[in-house]
């Protein structure tokens, strides 16, 4: 029983998941940038607010993509990690 090796693999997966979630920092920064620019342009041109709002939502969703990718990487590392099953296969 090589439980020490398995625990090292698990700990590395947890740390890697936390690092993968750090990209939320930049995603949020970019989304805040998009929203603030949209508010500025709505304030300058209130009659175009409907069009600007729909473009802003598409832009927000595009910017959110990288954040969601990080979340999925974290979920795969935590719940469906291929390395853990590979390690168990090799060790036991």
């Amino acid at each position, binding site marked *: 029983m090589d439980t020490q090796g398995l625990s090292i693999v698990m700990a590395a997966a947890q740390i890697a998941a936390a690092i993968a979630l750090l990209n939320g920092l930049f995603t949020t920064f970019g989304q805040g940038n998009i929203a603030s620019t949209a508010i500025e342009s709505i304030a300058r041109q209130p009659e175009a607010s409907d069009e600007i709002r*729909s473009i802003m*939502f*598409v832009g927000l*969703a595009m910017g*959110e*993509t990288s954040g*969601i*990718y990080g*979340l*999925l990487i974290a*979920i795969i590392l935590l*719940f469906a990690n291929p390395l853990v099953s590979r390690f168990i296969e090799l060790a036991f």
Partner: protein
Amino acid sequence: MDLNISNRAVVTIFGIEIWITETIVNTWFIMAILIAFAIVVRIHIRKAELVPRGLQNAVEMAIEMFDDFVIGTVGEKLSYLSPWYFTVFVFLAVSTLIGVFGVRAPSADWATTFGLSLITFFLLTILSIRYQGLKGYIKPLLLPAWPFLPMNIIGELAKPISLSFRLFGNMLSATIINTMYSALTPWWASIGVPVFLHLAFDIFFGLLQVYIFVIISLSYVNSAVNG
């Protein structure tokens, strides 16, 4: 805490195992709701009025609004796409709202969202060849020069994957947050607070992502057809 998609039954047809998962059962449930509503509306509209009132008015307004939205995004000549995307929108919206009742949303399974975005992928490929010809379809793949062909093909194939992951990641994160909250807190904490969690993650962000799914599918189709 159970985040896996549980398997309900295994059906064997011609030696091929088909797994009836929770997602498929919930999809059937939503289909039953939508078909029942459609039948009710059909019976109601049989005696249609020129000046719509009540249910007829509400349904007409919803359809007209969506038609205008589709025509505004992809143009008049592709307005026949409107019924399909209205179906996708209503299905995904109901599957988002069903998460409020503690039922696992079908869109929190990658298979559902990938299936829907794969249809969009085939749709935009076929419509692009139909309206611009094979030459017009291949030409943007060779831009800005021919060595970029592999990268453009990867970009084309990444479209359905990114489209499906966006909705799936959002719905899965809502499911995970709600499951973790109900699993990690004592019983008295689950009296009022989950209402706000569901309101934020299921209803607001979920419906926003459904809208985004439809509008990004339509803008992919638009850029494929109108260049």
